């Protein structure tokens, strides 16, 4: 069986600085995979490379065995990989409902249609309402997304990413800046919407990581130093030295 995501000797440089220095990683279908690492390790850059926001400098990214390196983001999305962002990235002047609907239009095959009236598309609107129900924003669906609270915007962010039914979902620090209770809710939400899909996430909150992930990869200075089950990562000496230890001292 081919892996959902396969990275081979992936590299990225900005000018003379190499940020990602030959990453090899294989993420199996249906796995919940977390990428952890100290600040500046290149986690977000890695996400941008996989999702097409940045072009790769070397190596390949494969999605279900198909090379997707350097494809534009919308092509990658159409092949079934969807992502959220670390900094909330929504359509602020559009209503919550419309935000989610934008995440559904392409997969419902509307493309750039100017011959369908959007409010008449029953199936699309019903599915949108379902997703909004799932992310718990039904009572807020008609207000502009820009005026939601931070936690609500994060939930919306995840909702947009997951709405389209992509089979690989990438979440970049989904719980960053959240309170404890908000984090718990977010975890429950992520668990629910990634059911039966592949999840790749960057996360700083170790509680979330060990709670949610099937496997964890540790990225330090642009290299994966370990990729294993949560227990083995927790017990790994190398990881503790490179990362967890450093975190504890802080």
């Amino acid at each position: 069986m081919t892996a959902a995501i396969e990275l081979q000797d992936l590299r990225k440089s900005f000018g003379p600085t190499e940020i990602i220095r030959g990453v090899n990683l294989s993420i199996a279908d249906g796995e919940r995979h977390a990428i952890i690492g100290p600040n500046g390790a290149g986690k977000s850059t890695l996400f941008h490379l996989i999702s097409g926001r940045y072009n790769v400098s070397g190596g390949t990214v494969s999605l279900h065995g198909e090379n997707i390196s350097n494809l534009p983001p919308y092509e990658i999305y159409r092949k079934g990989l969807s992502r959220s962002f670390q900094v909330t990235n929504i359509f602020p002047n559009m209503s919550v409902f419309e935000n989610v609907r934008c995440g559904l239009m392409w997969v419902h095959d509307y493309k750039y249609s100017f011959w369908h009236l959007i409010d008449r598309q029953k199936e699309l609107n019903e599915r949108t309402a379902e997703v909004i129900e799932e992310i718990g924003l039904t009572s807020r669906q008609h207000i502009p997304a820009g005026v939601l609270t931070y936690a609500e915007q994060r939930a919306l962010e995840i909702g947009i990413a997951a709405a389209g039914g992509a089979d690989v979902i990438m979440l970049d620090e989904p719980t960053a800046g959240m309170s404890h209770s908000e984090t718990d809710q977010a975890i429950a939400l992520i668990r629910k919407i990634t059911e039966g899909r592949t999840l790749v996430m960057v996360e700083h909150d170790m509680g979330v990581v060990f709670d949610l992930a099937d496997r964890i990869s540790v990225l330090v200075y642009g290299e994966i130093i370990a990729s294993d089950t949560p227990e083995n990562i927790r017990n790994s000496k190398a990881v503790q030295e490179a990362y967890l230890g450093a975190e504890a001292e802080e």
Partner: protein
Amino acid sequence: MSEISKTASPATARPLMKTLLPWIGFFILLLALPNIFSSNVGLYTMNLMGIFVIFALSYNMLLGQGGMLSFGHAVYFGLGGFMSVHFMNYIEDGDFTFPMYLIPIFGGLIGLVFGIIIGSFSTRRAGTVFAMISLGVGELMAASSLIFVAFFGGEEGVSGDRTTGPDLMGINFGQDIHIYYLIAGWVFVTVALMYLFSRTPAGRMANAVRDNAERAEFVGYSQRKVRFVSFCASGFFAGIAGGLFALNFEIVTEENLNALTSGTVLLMAYIGGVGFFIGPIVGAVIFTLLQSILSNYTDIWQLYVGILFVLTVMYVPQGLTGIFMMHTAAWRMRRVGSLILPYLRAGVPALAMLTGIAAFLETIHHMRSSVEGETAMSMMGVDFDSHSFVAWIVILALVVVGGYLTRSQLPQLKEAWEMANKPPAQREGAGS
């Protein structure tokens, strides 16, 4: 900003009647207008309004809906006009049989063709790059219009005759009222089509790309293609407006596709409010009114339009429509009434101040431009001497006193505004 989503409003299907009501009202209004303003000037002004309504709405497909600031939208308007006037001449020469009232179709088609050509490279990026390309293309077209004389007619333009087509039930569009109904028909159809466009996936994604082009790419849409679709549609409707211009005035010149016209449409859309579907309609109507009425009274009407534009940009970026829409919350809570008095108290002195400023500008203008030695002038029915001491005292008093009083009323206006917009629960809490 919440009003922006008004054009993008609830997805829950509204009752059909409620959706249709504004359109029925619009239709009746278009039918009734010539009975209310039946003078020649009235018809002339309304015809121009109709043309500008379409033009400004097509412009807003770029700016308001799609986040593309264009400085060259007159290209599609002008080309539509030239194409249409040529077809009018073909019909006149008998080369070709076609009903005259459908001529704007050709304008729309050439607008669409040029939209496709120019959009194919200019929609790659929004923002500054797009604005610069639009400016360049606009200048290029304006320059070509003086070079390719066969198509653009050089400096005197191309003229035609709309009455030469086959009659439509005895109507040959010889009378102004006929052309009014012709334009009104086109206005109704195109406004409806442009509204419907905004309610399609392409129209919704145009808003999404305007809001956040990057995220749109991560839900499967190429920002470039989304812009391209809007751009082509916009060119099409601008071309139709140009075609109607040709039918109405029977002459199209270089001026119809140069930067001045591009600037005018930007002004209209912005003054009306680019965040609302009806904003450009309001803008086009007000601009045309200013142009045709104010210009009867003063030579410096363009200065006033310019000042209005600058003030809009600085203080009410949501446009004149936005000012009305700001009151929806208070309106729903039935508290608009409480604002009338504060508005009057601030509005009357503000009006005095504005009168003073206008009098100042007019008097200066009169002193500079009148015949040597002539000092008598009149403004708003008041005759005075532009060099007299008293006149200047009055002007100064109007500005200073009006300004002072307006300023002194602002705090209570602000307070009244906050009272009127407080959520109900909070207000009761404060009251009890």
